[in-house]
Each structure stands twice: as structure tokens, then as C-alpha cells.
């Protein structure tokens, strides 16, 4: 979806230009760009921008989430029984219910005014960044694959593969501090890359669909992890649970802001990764090829790009970044390897990449937003008792709305940039049709 979506602005001017040669054959007509608005108004430019669309999707999703909270709140529903008599009671209770929940969500993810010291007040923000770290890595992985036309929905399995390697190196090996961490990071990237590479190779060699391979490999990875956590190499001595011993101190990401916060240097690495991917995709030859394969594999093949090799490269790259998310979890946030190490980051990463429209920095901000939802959701559940699953609902609604711009435009009555141009078009052929058709005969 998203690859085609990011292309959406391109076809519109392209078919405006496409008519140029035909026109050139006939008598001189108005140039193809003449029908464009001389200068779009500021209001038009703002309301038709994709950023506004994303914001509109966010608002719509929050409204639906709010409705769910209201309708399931017994306090509100009890007031609905006398809605006709005193409607204000219902609205007051509904507003209280929703605003408290969303305020708790905000206070749990950004700024907690109840904290006594500055660090306590900003603690939620650092939690958001901590949770966002694996989301950004995995989101980048998915975004890279989307840009090249592949659906890597196997980030979950690749995170697990990365986490297994990171856990093994971090627990079993004994090395000096910096080197140990470096090997953990490289090993996790390699682990994820291998897991993703399996998909790439199988797709390139046999033509099997990557979505199915990814789903199956997710489960294989999970079961492999659960099996390994029962073996002596991984299982914590004296424990029957699927949990490993602590990762050695030498293999840990240092805490970024001291030991009272969980935020670690993995976040900085994630920012570096975003910048690197941004350069790779937009500025390098490899990135150009990948985008070409994603935009139109046949055209890419015709112009000499090896498409099947491209699939393998993309999946290796994508898997590698997902593997880094595993490293961030094992050596940064959790500091142990557990059966639940990947949580649902691999699936959330899909929604993160979609919300970020598959661009690296878009993915970064989307990762922060979903990290905030996650961190705030936990706080919300403890303070107002609103179930954390509402976060899943809001997240998935955001993505559904983002994915269907016509729906959001219809809800908010936003102008459609493609349609504005299309509406103008019929007028011109109608006026110039006799002359051109006459000339061609």
C-alpha cells in the first residue's frame, strides 16, 4: 500500500506531462501546465498536505477510541438512563471519563506534573523513548522493505532471531566492555539479516510469496526461542521459566541518563540508523535501485537492475535492522532474554512504518508516537483503569484511516489534490477535442 501511496503524488503530474507529445503533433495548444491553479492558496496547500491527513487520521482514531471508553464506562451509561431528563449529566460524565483517560495517557508518556523533581516529571518521556527504540528499528526494517515493494511482515521473527544471537553473545562470551557490546550489536544485526535473508532468497529463487514465508518464519522463530530457553546454554540455572541469565555488564548499552532511567544508548543508535537509512534510501545508488524495484519491478529490470538480487539485498537489510531491535531489547531495555522478548514490536512496526509513510524520519516520529501510546497506556491502565487494549484499537484505526485517504477526506471534508486537477481536465479536452482530432485525421 504505502509504496504506491508514496508514489501517489507522482502519477498526477506525470499524466499531465504525458499528454504533451500528443499535443505537440497537433496545432499549438495551451501548454499542459496552464490549467494548474496559478498559485494554490495557502489554505488549500495546508489542507491537502499529507501531514494534515495524518493528523486528521489521528484525531478520528482518538475520537473513536474515546467513544469506546465512554460507552463502556458504567458511570456514563448509568447517567444515560435519564438522558432525556438531564442530558448534561451524560455529557459531563462522558467528558470526564474520556479526558481523564487521555490525560493519563499523556501524563504517562510525556510529562507527569505530579512528580516532585524535574527528573520525576520527565520520567514518562524517557520511558516513551525507551519503548520507541525497538519500534523505530523494526519500523525502519519494515519501511525499507515497503519502499522496495516487499511486504516484510516478518519483523517479529527477525527481532527474535536478533535477540537470540544478542542473548547468546551477551551471556556466553566474556570480552572487554566496548568490544563485547559491539559484537552483540553486530551479531544481532547478522541474526536478523539471516532470518530476513531466508525470505529474500526463497522469494528470489522460488517465487514464493514473502508474506506467507514471513508469517510462517515468525512462528518458527518464536518456537525456536522457546526451545532454546529450555536448553542449558540459555536457561537461567534453577529456573523453570523461559528466561535466561542476566546479560553480562560488558555487553549492556550504557544508560543514557543515569541509572534511575531505563533509557539507553540504543536510542541514540536508533537515531543514527534513521539518518543512515535516510541517506541510503534517498541519496545512494543502492537506495535508488531499491526504490526503482519498488516503484516498478519490470521497468527496473528493463533498465538493467537485477530485481531478484534486489529482493535478497532488501530482506538482508530489513532483517538486519529488525535484528537491531532485538539487540536493543536484550542488551538495553530488558537485559535478559525471555520468551516474550519481542513483545508485539514486530507487528507494531508494520503500523509504525505505515503511519510514517515508509520514510525514515516519518517512521522515527511514528515510532515515538506509538512508543508514547505504549508507555502512556500502561500508566492509563493503572491510574484510570482504562484497559490498555484501547491503545491497540486507536493504533490500528490510525493506520486504517491513513491507508484510506478518501475516507479521511470525506470525514473532514478536506480537498483532494488529485481530484482538483482531474476536475479541471475534462474541460480542456472538451474545448480542444475538435481541433486535435481534426489534425490527426
Amino acid at each position, binding site marked *: 500500500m*504505502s509504496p504506491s501511496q508514496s508514489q501517489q503524488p507522482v502519477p498526477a503530474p506525470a499524466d499531465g506531462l504525458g499528454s504533451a507529445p500528443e499535443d505537440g503533433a497537433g496545432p499549438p495548444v495551451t501548454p499542459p501546465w496552464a490549467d494548474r491553479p496559478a498559485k494554490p492558496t495557502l489554505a488549500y496547500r495546508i489542507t491537502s498536505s499529507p501531514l494534515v491527513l495524518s493528523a486528521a487520521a489521528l484525531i478520528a482514531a482518538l475520537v473513536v477510541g474515546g467513544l469506546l471508553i465512554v460507552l463502556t464506562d458504567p458511570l456514563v451509561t448509568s447517567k444515560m438512563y435519564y438522558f432525556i431528563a438531564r442530558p448534561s449529566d451524560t455529557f459531563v460524565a462522558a467528558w470526564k471519563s474520556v479526558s481523564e483517560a487521555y490525560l493519563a495517557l499523556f501524563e504517562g508518556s510525556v510529562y507527569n506534573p505530579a512528580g516532585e523533581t524535574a527528573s520525576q516529571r520527565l520520567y514518562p518521556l524517557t520511558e516513551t523513548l525507551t519503548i520507541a527504540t525497538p519500534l523505530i528499528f523494526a519500523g525502519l526494517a519494515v519501511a525499507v522493505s515497503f519502499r522496495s515493494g516487499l511486504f516484510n*511482515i516478518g519483523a517479529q521473527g527477525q527481532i527474535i532471531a536478533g535477540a537470540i544471537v544478542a542473548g547468546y553473545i551477551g551471556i556466553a562470551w566474556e570480552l572487554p566492555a566496548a568490544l563485547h557490546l559491539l559484537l552483540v550489536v553486530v551479531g544481532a544485526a547478522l541474526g536478523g539479516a539471516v532470518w530476513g535473508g531466508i525470505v529474500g532468497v526463497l522469494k528470489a529463487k522460488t517465487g514464493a*510469496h514473502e*508474506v506467507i514465508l514471513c508469517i510462517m518464519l515468525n512462528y518458527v522463530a518464536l518456537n525456536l526461542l*522457546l526451545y532454546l530457553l529450555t536448553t542449558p546454554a540459555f536457561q537461567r540455572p534453577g529456573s523453570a521459566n523461559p528466561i535466561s541469565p542476566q546479560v553480562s555488564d560488558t555487553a549492556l548499552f550504557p544508560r543514557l541518563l543515569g541509572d534511575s532511567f531505563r533509557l539507553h544508548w540504543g536510542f541514540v543508535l536508533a537515531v543514527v540508523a534513521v539518518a543512515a537509512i535516510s541517506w541510503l534510501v534517498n541519496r545512494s545508488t543502492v537506495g535508488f535501485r531499491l526504490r526503482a524495484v519498488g516503484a516498478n519491478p519490470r521497468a527496473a529490470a528493463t533498465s538493467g537492475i537485477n530485481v531478484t538480487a534486489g529482493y535478497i539485498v532488501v530482506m538482508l537489510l530489513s532483517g538486519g535492522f529488525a535484528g537491531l531491535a532485538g539487540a536493543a531489547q536484550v542488551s538495553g531495555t530488558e537485559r535478559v532474554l525471555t520468551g516474550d522478548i519481542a513483545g508485539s514490536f514486530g*507487528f507494531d512496526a508494520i503500523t509504525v512504518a505505515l503511519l510514517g509513510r515508509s520514510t525514515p524520519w516519518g517512521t522515527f516520529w511514528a515510532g515515538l508516537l506509538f512508543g508514547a501510546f505504549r508507555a502512556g497506556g500502561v500508566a492509563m491502565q493503572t491510574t484510570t483503569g482504562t484497559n490498555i487494549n484501547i491503545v491497540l484499537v486507536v493504533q490500528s484505526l490510525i493506520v486504517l484511516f491513513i491507508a484510506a485517504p478518501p475516507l479521511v477526506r470525506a470525514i473532514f471534508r478536506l480537498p483532494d489534490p488529485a481530484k482538483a486537477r482531474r476536475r479541471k481536465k475534462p474541460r480542456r479536452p472538451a474545448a480542444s477535442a475538435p481541433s486535435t482530432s481534426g489534425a490527426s485525421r
Partner: protein
Amino acid sequence: MSTQTLEPSRSAGAAPAPVVRNWKKAVIFSVLGLVALVLCGVNAADTTVVLRLSNPGDVVELGDLSLPASTTGWVLSVLMLAIAVLAIGLTAQGRGVSGWLSAVFWIAFILAMLVWAVGHATGNSLSLPGLLGGSLALSIPLIFGSMSGLLCERSGVVNIAIEGQLLFGAFAAALVGTLAGSAWIGLLAAVLGGALVALILAAFSIRYLVNQVIVGVVVNVLVSGLTGFLYSTVLQRDTSLLNAPPRLPSFAIPVLSEIPVIGRVLFDQSVLVYLMYAVVAVLWFALGRTRWGLRTRAVGEHPQAADTLGVKVNRLRFLNVLLGGAVAGMGGAFFTLVSVSSFTNDMTAGQGYIALAALIFGRWRPLGALCAALLFGFATNLQSVLSLLGTTVPSQFLTMLPYLVTIAAVTGLVGRSRGPAASGQPYVKE
């Protein structure tokens, strides 16, 4: 799994086409035969495996079947190797390996592995009807789910949302079934609930042309979040009033249920199981032999051609996706109206994805998907039965089996499984 060699064409006057020999099957048979020889023959446990063929109280009571693990292993693996040699001979002659031969091979293989695994377990006695009955129970949602996938994919819409349809079906059946106090109304609600989830899939993928895989994945998250939220905020407030649905009745079909071993397993079951037989049979017939089926397949393979001939492509797709959702909803009802009697968070636990795997492994055909789902159910049940018996095989590897088999199927290692050509591509009329 029938990779057939091409028959020489008999077109008049033309030179006979070159014979294409496909060695894949012969090679796989030989390798598996040797593996079985080493595992089940050489490495067999020195015990006797007892297979109980009937439960006390059956109409026809059969005695127990005692199989010495070692001898059985040797006999079966030699049989398998004989079939492998036969397959090599047939392939060398340019003839295909028949389906019956493969079936015998696979049955021998499964039996040999079963005897080997039970032989190495601490308990050596296994009830065959129990094993099969448990397998069937585990495969019911898989079968409904894969039929849902079949309806969607054969008409060109990828259905990753089977998981969500099952889950919402289970939720709707539990809630409405309890409120109405009737399992039948619960079943109806499950059907409507599944169709509602399918409506989201259809609206976004057909109307708004959003990528079908993405809609599917996101819908699964949405349903998981929504049911999880409603479960903890509404259902748990008063469990007996909101989350205690009555069960669907079950009855025995008079004569058929008296067949030894499989009679009770297949024909003394819940109504939902009989409904499953009906759904599979109807789909098998309708897809291959009715106008609707022909059009569905045409729309899934080549929508342009179908449109040219006057089929309303998107309308048919919409209809089929909704039907698929309804079928998956029935599978969801199995969770809350038959197997467990209340809804819990994420109770489908990835079954929708295994159903998708079954559909692919069954080559997008009703009977194939049925067999694949039964096989996956068997593998899952075998895993739990063996872990009860205390086997040495790690349960995680048995759990992995369906997924590995599916990967082998889509990559063409065990027969090429190729989906409908237009599956996943939205159709825009030009």
C-alpha cells in the same frame, strides 16, 4: 503433493514431446525412508507400543493393538524404502508416481513416527480414537478458517484477517449467546460478527484499494484490541450474565457412529462439526460445478477477462469476502460454544494464521485445505498427547511442524503450491 510428470502429447503427426522426469518425489521418499530406517528401526525403543482402538462402551469393542516398537519400525521403514525404490523405477521409466502410492507412503511414515515417539515416551499406551478425536476438535476452527481464506483468495482477495474473523466470531458468540440464552443465536451472532470483520476487509481493500495484506494485518490488531478491551471492561464485570454462553448440542448419527475406531470420532459430534462437513461439501461442489464457482475462479485468476464477459468483479469479490467472514465466524463460535465455554483474551492464539497455512498447503482447494487442516490438527494434538506421555521430542519442534511444512509447500520443495493469479491485486476498471 502429486508432482505429476507430463504425459507425452499425442497430437497427430507431431514428434512425441520429451518426457519430463520429476525426481523430487522419489528423492524425498528415499530420504524419508532412510530417516525412518535409522530412527524407527535401528534406534527404536525396546518396548511394546499399545494402541487402544476403542473406548469402553463402544458398540463394537475392538481389542488393543500391541506393536513391538522395533519390529514395527523395521517393517514400516522397509515398506517405505520399497515404495521409494518403486518410485525411482517409475520415474526412470518416465511414468508418474500415483497418488495411492504416495498416500500409502505417508500413512506408513506417520505411523512409524508415531510408534517411534510413543516407544520412547514413558507411557506406552495410546488411545487411537482419543488421538483422532482430539485432532478433529483442534482442526475445526482451522477448517472453517481455511474455507474463509479459500472463498476470499479464489476470488482474488488475500485474507490475512482470518485470525480477526475467528476471534470476533468467538467474542460475538460468547456475548450474544449468553445474553440471548441460546447457543443458536450465539452461532448466528458469530456468523454476523465474522462477516462484520470481513466487511472492514472488503470495504478497505475493494472500495478504497488499500493493500489487502496491510488491511488484514491491521484488522487483526484492531479486533484483538477491541475484543480485549471489551472483554476486560464489559464481559468481566459480570461473567455469569455476559460471558457464560450455553453449548451447542451434539448428537450421534445412528448407524454411522457405530463404525469401529472412526465412528464416534466423526459422527458423534457437535452440530458445528456437521455444519463443517456441510460447508466443505457445499464449497467443493459450488466452486467446481456451479456458475458462481466458475465466475469466482475467473475473478481470482483473470479479472479483466471476467469483466469483459460481464462479471461484476468487485461486487462478486465483495460478496465472497463477506461469505468468507461468515464461515470464519462459525469457526470462531467453535471456541466459545463448543470447546471452551467462555471468551478469553486472544483465545484464537494464531489459529487464523495456521488456517491460512492449511489453505496454502492444501493448494487453495476445498478438499486439499480440509486434509491439510486435519493434518495440522493432528500434529498439534500429537504434540500435546506426546508431552502427556513424556516424550523426548521437544514440543516446540512439533509445534513448528505446520509452519515448516507450509514453507516447504510454497517454495515448491514438496509439490508446487501456486495461488490464484490475481490474488492480492485490486481490480480497477479502466
